[in-house]
């Protein structure tokens, strides 16, 4: 008996979460994306320690200086260090990405859950409102909201968050519609659980996976949207640094100070690319059929 047991290969049991993590770790693109995101988050958090200068400190003797040992990314039109501003700019971009997606999630998930779970006229009403919001192109709606709310980083985050909400409503609703007819939900209902408990304890945890993927990709979209609003003057207000507003100024000096445009743009590109890689990797890890 002991010999037989020794011959049988032992398979280690993994929880679904561990399996997803193992699949994610094997995807090099996703891991590279995660590394860059961690890098940007660290830089944003440690900005006062890693920035070579105060991002607001002007110097009339160092106006539009090319990159050098003193200013590795050069200086801008009023002598501020571009590297310091790019480092502090990461704070605005990451904050906007995270806060606006949190707004979208905190509105989109409950509304989508309500529409999908309750159904009937509530679903019809929510779906029509969602359709109406989706009919307005994301950035144009964000611009309109930011314009009416007034230009500031907070309002830009609210505008981006609200504009991205319908995607989460629609996704949550679709997932809830698929899950609520499962046997385990039926069983939970049969043993007398309340609707609220079924929705929160049995349905919600089973619709989270695609929402995580969408949230990661939405952060990428929100980072670009914040940069776009700041570029148009509707986001972070000067003199506070943000990559979008840095590019807005840089475009006026492109012929004699191109370095002013290179670094903030490259930072947006790298951060967005990283979130996209991470999102793609998460999607493949959570749904291997997608590959």
């Amino acid at each position, binding site marked *: 008996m002991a010999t037989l047991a020794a011959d049988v290969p032992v398979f280690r049991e993994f929880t679904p979460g561990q399996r997803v993590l193992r699949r994610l770790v094997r995807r090099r693109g996703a891991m590279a994306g995660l590394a860059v995101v961690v890098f940007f988050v660290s830089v944003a958090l440690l900005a006062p320690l890693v920035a070579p200068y105060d991002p607001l400190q002007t110097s009339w003797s160092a106006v539009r200086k090319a990159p050098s040992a003193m200013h590795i990314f050069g200086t801008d039109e009023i002598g501020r260090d571009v590297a310091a501003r790019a480092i502090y700019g990461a704070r605005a971009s990451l904050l906007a990405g995270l806060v606006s997606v949190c707004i979208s999630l905190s509105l989109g998930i409950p509304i989508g859950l309500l529409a999908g779970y309750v159904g009937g006229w509530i679903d019809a009403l929510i779906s029509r409102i969602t359709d109406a919001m989706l*009919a*307005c*192109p994301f950035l144009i709606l964000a611009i*309109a909201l930011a314009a*009416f709310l007034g230009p500031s980083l907070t309002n830009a985050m609210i505008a981006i968050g609200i504009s991205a909400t319908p995607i989460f409503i629609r996704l949550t609703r679709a997932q809830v519609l698929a899950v609520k007819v499962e046997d385990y939900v039926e069983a939970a209902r049969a043993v007398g659980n309340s609707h609220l408990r079924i929705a929160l304890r049995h349905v919600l945890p089973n619709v989270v996976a695609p929402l995580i993927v969408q949230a990661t990709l939405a952060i990428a979209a929100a980072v670009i949207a914040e940069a776009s609003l700041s570029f148009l*003057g509707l986001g972070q207000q000067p003199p506070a640094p943000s990559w979008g507003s840095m590019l807005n100024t*840089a475009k006026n000096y492109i012929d004699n100070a191109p370095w002013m445009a290179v670094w903030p743009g490259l930072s*947006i590109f790298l951060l967005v690319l990283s979130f996209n890689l991470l999102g793609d990797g998460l999607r493949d890890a959570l749904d291997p059929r997608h590959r």
Partner: protein
Amino acid sequence: MFNYLVQRLATIVPTLFFVSILIFGLQQLLPGDPAVILAGEDRDPSVVAHLHEKLHLDDPLPVRYLYWAGGVLRGDLGESQRIQKPVLELILEKLPVTLELALIAIVIALSIGITAGIVSAVAKDSAWDYAANVFALWGLSTPNFWLGIMLILLFSVTLGWLPASGYVSPFEDLKANLAAMIMPAFVLGNAIAAVLMRHTRSAMLQVLNSDYVRTARAKGLDERVVILKHALRNALIPVITLGALEFGTLLSGAVLTEQVFTIPGFGKLIVDAVFNRDYAVVQGVVLFTATAYITLNLLADLAYFVVNPRLRDQ
């Protein structure tokens, strides 16, 4: 077909109703008295009083909405406070410029996106496939206003080949018009090409594994004929309809692109309106965009219905 059209139109009406409420509701976000804000910096009391009367600001909210919606249905989107011109007239004035930009951008996006998608699917898991996927990720991750600035740096400042900004009507000088439009159109088409590439790749992979393609190959047909005539024609149906949904990306992108290249189009109209606090124009542009988007979606659905015989037979 008729029943389908009626069904689709029936869903559009409530959507348009909620779009109108959403856009009307934007005005309610203005802090304080909208008339004071709409009156501009002078805040002339006579203008404020006139706006109160014109916008029915003393009436209850639902009544104000009905007045506003009634005007919209008659084609009255309000009047620009700055230029003193009807908003619809302003939109129609700027629209041809953006449409030309969008058209060139779509041609660029289709040429790059579909070609890259076909190559990627046919040579799956090869270096070409990886290159095409990297291109798609690049397209999706590059902020188009930054790409625009970088292209200006390369082609206008460094090489001096193309103008950095401005617009010339094609009826005045076609060559100068194309020279001014090619960079912004590429910037705009770049992100859409990435999306189209992904759709084409996925649709081609599905079609290339289907029985009729296997039969075509078994008959000994040339691989090029199999791919271009048999596979691509069917794969393109969902790609074209999904491509129509990229209209929103195109308009959002146009706002930024027109700003970078100083093109006097639809996108620049909304940005200028935002900065001049010309809220009627902002509302008008959003309403016009949403209506155009809904109409285009309907047309894309109908096109899909027309070209797909299986749907027609149902």
